[in-house]
């Protein structure tokens, strides 16, 4: 759509992109490098029968420099508040456990330790939207808050490669 004056503001996913999300198809990944001035957004479906990359733990504990919003959106038009899934999310360095079963938005303050985040069960496709309120995605891992038995099940080389913005 870039041929038009404002077409650059309409961002969708290139199905030929080699980048895949393990939980379901991407809708969009945006930041300041895609559209000047845009904050970081990642939108993807979560499909039944899928597993996160670190299936034992999910996305391990981490922080971001900027506030983050995690949208969990169910797709049942007859019951839009039902997520159709169970998602486990731990909050804080104490790893306070929460189970998400309703469509909801989770606010993550800057520098707040959150995760593991992991869909435990998905009965119906739902949509996940991650909003980082900064121009670029930042992430710093906190493996030290995980018990050693869980820490040992994580492929840290995979997640370390995603750390950025805290040099």
């Amino acid at each position, binding site marked *: 759509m870039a041929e038009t004056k404002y077409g650059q503001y309409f961002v969708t996913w290139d199905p030929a992109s080699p980048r895949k999300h393990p939980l379901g198809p991407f809708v969009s990944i945006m930041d300041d490098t895609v559209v000047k001035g845009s904050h970081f957004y990642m939108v993807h479906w979560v499909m039944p029968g899928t597993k996160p990359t670190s299936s034992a733990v999910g996305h391990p504990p981490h*922080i971001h420099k900027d506030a983050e919003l995690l949208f969990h959106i169910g797709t049942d038009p007859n019951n839009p508040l039902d997520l159709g899934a169970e998602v486990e999310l731990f909050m804080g*360095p104490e790893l306070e456990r929460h189970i998400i079963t309703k469509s909801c938005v989770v606010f993550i*303050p*800057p*520098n*707040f*330790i959150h995760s593991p985040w992991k869909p435990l069960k998905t009965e119906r496709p739902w949509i996940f939207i991650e909003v980082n309120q900064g121009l670029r995605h930042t992430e*710093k891992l*906190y*493996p*030290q*808050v995980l018990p*050693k038995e869980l*820490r*040992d099940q994580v492929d*840290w080389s995979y997640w370390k490669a995603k750390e950025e913005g*805290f040099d």
Partner: protein
Amino acid sequence: MVYKITEVCLKCGLCVKQCPEGAIIAGEKIRTDGLVLQPVSIDRQKCTDCGVCVSTECWCPAQAIIRA
């Protein structure tokens, strides 16, 4: 000493670069159980009691810095 670092410190080292006075000092890194930890301490000569380190709830992810 105006502020102190409590035992809930996760030794992540984030505060070293965030203190505007450079008053939080990185110690020797600790390697244990596959972790690389960064102990820190407060240099009382450099600390100006500016309060930045306790100014927002999540400045320190563990909220380990408190007024002494």
